[in-house]
């Protein structure tokens, strides 16, 4: 797995204080961080880019305090997930005082290819999940972290993450049932499966 493979070489935070090394650290994780933020933010690419930049900025600030208890990747993705949570709280707060959503400008989707309708459906289905379910589903099934890694990133117990995953999968199977097509015999749900 990508995180596991990078872990060994990434566990040297003291070497990263220098600017160019931090730049390499950020460069190596930028695409993946953007993908994770995009998925946790209902497909809003512009906001995802802002959030990723904030996360890198916070990581740079907090790097001196990194104690090495977790891997550098887990530590960074925890910062990123918190930044996403902060952004969502801020969006919710703005929603309280927002003008008529019909008047608000539509979110710009810079992606010119693919199936925008399908993306929108997946995004809507994910938005219907609770925050915990969405985070667990995205980390484990879309980002392919193990349940233990996801639990570490989210700062939750493994059992809690499994429970969120179970509920998220159940809801998404219903919501996106047509994407699954006919289920062959013996190809049932595997929501308790750990990727480890």
């Amino acid at each position, binding site marked *: 797995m990508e995180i596991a493979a990078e872990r060994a070489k990434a566990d040297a935070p003291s070497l990263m204080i220098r600017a160019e090394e931090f730049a390499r650290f950020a460069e190596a994780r930028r*695409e993946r961080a*953007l993908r994770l933020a995009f998925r946790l933010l209902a497909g809003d*690419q512009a906001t995802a880019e802002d959030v990723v930049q904030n996360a890198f*900025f916070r990581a740079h600030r907090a790097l001196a305090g990194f104690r090495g208890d977790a891997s550098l990747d887990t530590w960074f993705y925890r910062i990123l997930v918190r930044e996403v949570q902060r952004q969502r709280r801020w969006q919710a707060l703005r929603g309280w005082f927002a003008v008529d959503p019909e008047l608000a400008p539509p979110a710009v989707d810079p992606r010119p290819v693919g199936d925008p309708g399908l993306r929108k459906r*997946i995004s809507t289905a994910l938005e219907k999940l609770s925050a915990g379910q969405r985070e667990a589903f995205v980390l484990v099934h879309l980002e392919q972290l193990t349940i233990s890694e996801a639990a570490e990133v989210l700062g939750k117990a493994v059992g809690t993450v499994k429970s969120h995953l179970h509920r998220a999968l159940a809801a998404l199977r219903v919501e996106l049932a047509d*994407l699954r*097509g006919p289920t062959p015999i013996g190809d049932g749900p595997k929501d308790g499966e750990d990727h480890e």
Partner: protein
Amino acid sequence: MSEDRWLETLRDEFQPEPMSPQRAAGFRRALDERIERRAGARRFALPALASAAVAALALWVAWPVTAPIEVDASATSAELDEYVDPDAFASELAGRGDYLPADYKGLALLLDDDTADR
């Protein structure tokens, strides 16, 4: 479609557009600028704050006390003299009464008595 295939479809369909080289460069530049701005702020703000703190401490230590110090009026030398009146024993001071201040005459007397007891 199997569960794995279904999840793979979700993964493939629900991902951002990769950043173009120009966009990635802009991202890096913006991040570098933020980090540099913060470093610059720290370079000036931290020494300024530290200097201000040291100056405030020095001022606090050096500033003369303007409030009057309360004195226990019951312990003035006049009252103490009521218990030990050096003049009362002036004749026993064997000439030291000439140069000792009044407050010390009583002490000298006590010391002399102590020597005599031994």
